[in-house]
């Protein structure tokens, strides 16, 4: 039984890590209606910039500030060069543009900082401590704590500040928001910069675990089923979706494996969350917390 709880809790905590990446997607989708496939590349770019600056001898917190500044510059550039020319294009075009953007950022990151693999030390040991006989990772708990704080801050931002409300207005309808005087470009820069900040946090936490290397861009693929489950526009949805996906994925990997004979079930982690999300969509097409779409003829 302890084993079951170990897998479950490990899965829940892994799910939090997925949610961190999904948060960036949600932010951008919520505010600009763009499904930003480049989020994974942004995670990589942020982490690589940070770690390269730290390795040149800069203090930790100063490096974070510099990286944030770099993400703001990136947001500016994206808004000016990409988004401005694609106002009111269909979603698929914007999606394709973000895939192009992902290639661009990946090339830029390794072109600027090199192809080396880097380690990040955040000062938290990954040794487990025992709670009621179950091994729990300190690092995972730290990550969950960070995610919780981040979500709280973002939720407050969206509900109670003027900029947050403006962001939601822009998500609803670009042209309507323009017509009531919301400065569209500035809003987009803000939201992409915030998503860049979330990407930095996700990049640091994932990078501490896997090392800062190109594979960080694959974290985006893990976040997609989370988004489906939680809905593309909902921040609490990203968290809940992440928890569900993480837990079921790990439980399926272990238990479907051992019940059918270890050699059948192993390795299903790649497609199982997607299959789960697909089944879920058949029942509830907008996700748990997504906005219901009304289609008119």
């Amino acid at each position, binding site marked *: 039984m302890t084993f079951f709880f170990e897998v479950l809790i490990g899965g829940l905590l892994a799910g939090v890590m997925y949610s961190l990446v999904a948060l960036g997607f949600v932010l951008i989708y919520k505010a600009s209606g763009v499904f930003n496939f480049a989020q994974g590349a942004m995670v990589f770019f942020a982490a690589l910039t940070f770690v390269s600056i730290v390795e040149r001898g800069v203090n930790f917190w100063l490096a974070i500030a510099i990286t944030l500044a770099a993400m703001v510059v990136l947001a500016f550039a994206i808004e000016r060069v990409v988004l401005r020319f694609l106002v009111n294009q269909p979603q698929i075009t914007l999606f394709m543009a973000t895939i192009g953007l992902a290639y661009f950022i990946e090339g830029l990151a390794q072109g600027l900082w090199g*192809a080396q693999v*880097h380690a990040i030390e955040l000062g938290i040991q990954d040794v487990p401590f025992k709670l009621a006989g179950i091994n729990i990772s300190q690092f995972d708990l730290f990550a969950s704590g960070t995610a919780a704080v981040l979500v709280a801050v973002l939720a407050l931002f969206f509900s109670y500040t003027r900029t947050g409300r403006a962001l939601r207005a822009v998500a609803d309808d670009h042209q309507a928001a323009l017509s009531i005087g919301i400065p569209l470009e500035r809003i987009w820069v803000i939201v992409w910069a915030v998503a860049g900040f979330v990407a930095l946090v996700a990049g640091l936490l994932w990078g501490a675990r896997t090392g800062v*290397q190109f594979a960080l861009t694959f974290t985006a693929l893990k976040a997609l089923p989370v988004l489906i489950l939680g809905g593309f526009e909902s921040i609490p949805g990203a968290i809940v979706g992440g928890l569900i996906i993480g837990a079921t994925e790990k439980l399926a990997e272990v238990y479907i494996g051992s019940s059918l004979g270890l050699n059948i079930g192993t390795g299903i982690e790649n497609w199982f969350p997607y299959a789960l999300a697909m089944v879920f969509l058949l029942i509830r097409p907008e996700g748990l917390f997504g906005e219901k779409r009304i289609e008119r003829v």
Partner: protein
Amino acid sequence: MIRSVSLSVRKTALCAVIGAMVGAAAPAFAQNEQFIPMLSYRVGPYAAGGTGFFGGFIDYLDMVNKRDGGVNGVKLTWEECETEYKNDRGMECYERLKKKGPTGATVVDPLSTGITYAISDRAPTDKIPVVSLGHGRSDAADGRVFEYVFPLITSYWSQSTAKIKFIGQKEGGMDKLKGKKIVNLYHGSAYGKETIPVLDVQAKKYGFTVTHIEVPHPGNEQQSQWLQVGQIKPDWVILRGWGVMNPVALRTAQRVGYPSNKILGVWWSGAEEDVLPAGDAAKGYIAASFHPSGTNFAVIQDILKHVYGGGKKGNVDDPKRIGQQYFNRGVIQGILAVEGIRVAQEKYGKGKPITGEQMKWGLENLNLSEQRLKQIGASGLMSPLKSSCLDHEGGGAIKFMAWDGAKWTNITDWIQSDQSIVRPMVEEAAAKYAKEKHLTPRKC
């Protein structure tokens, strides 16, 4: 109109470049040169390994040019083509570069199993030998079927037998393996699956149980796999990883409390890039390699002197990488290529460039004895190697190293593979390939 202007500008630019490309198809090399195409990858998830390996390879060739003036006066030339580790890009690069140089491409090592497979089919028609150093198809060791493919030094199957020998050593003898539990944690790809059959054969022979656990590509997350390992409580874990799977495995092992000095990695899990991100979780981790790290080998010193000396720039940006695993691997590839050229020149005429077919002969008649290695300056860097028409592998040996947090240190001497297990499997698989492709194996 803006649209039509941009269209015409784009069209003319496109035409000009295509024209230049077609026009530039004629080789622009002098006559006394030996051309080696470099199907390198410097972007993407495996760029760290690619830049190291091809850096070492190119630096060695550069050094031979500068120190010796080439091979008996024939200068070595090369051209890089970015494959991004993708099979079709590799194929395109191969096709583009295979006819360059006065005698065409001499030898090719794409450092990618997928590209090797794809090119191996064309190599016999194009008569260009493909060296798959420490990767690629293990059954290509049978030179009767795979005339132009050379999995030199050692293949995956051979390496697996050497690993079991090492474990046997550590346990106090091969008979002590009976009843032991080993987990094979493999990357969910063609590369990862490659050693499952040979481990099963050895498990039956020596009486240990092997459990194969797959880590789905890319391996960012291995929680459930290592929890299963924790349930099984094996005596040893063989880590057959690639890229990001390696540091994550080591960290996750630490998290579930599995000792790092019982984890045995393959050489694609045994480079500095694989252990540095894992921090102190990697201390004590053991990895197999067919060459050590370090710069105190005469040939590496020569590279430092002739290529990097006096502040000159070599192919590698960060001089710390010289002497690391991937760099040294590239140097060894260079040694094999140059030795192959030299041996072929002995037979076909010194001082002039050789063709791919002659290079194949050269690679089949390598005799890198300990004495010859001393002459080259690679004593201790490589194990002695002797290839033949029948054996395209060469019988290379494997050393095991442990990571101490800052560098790799050797913990064994050269361990030979067990060809009594591997060779029958190789011949069976090669025969199957020959049947599928309607090939008649040649006589050796």
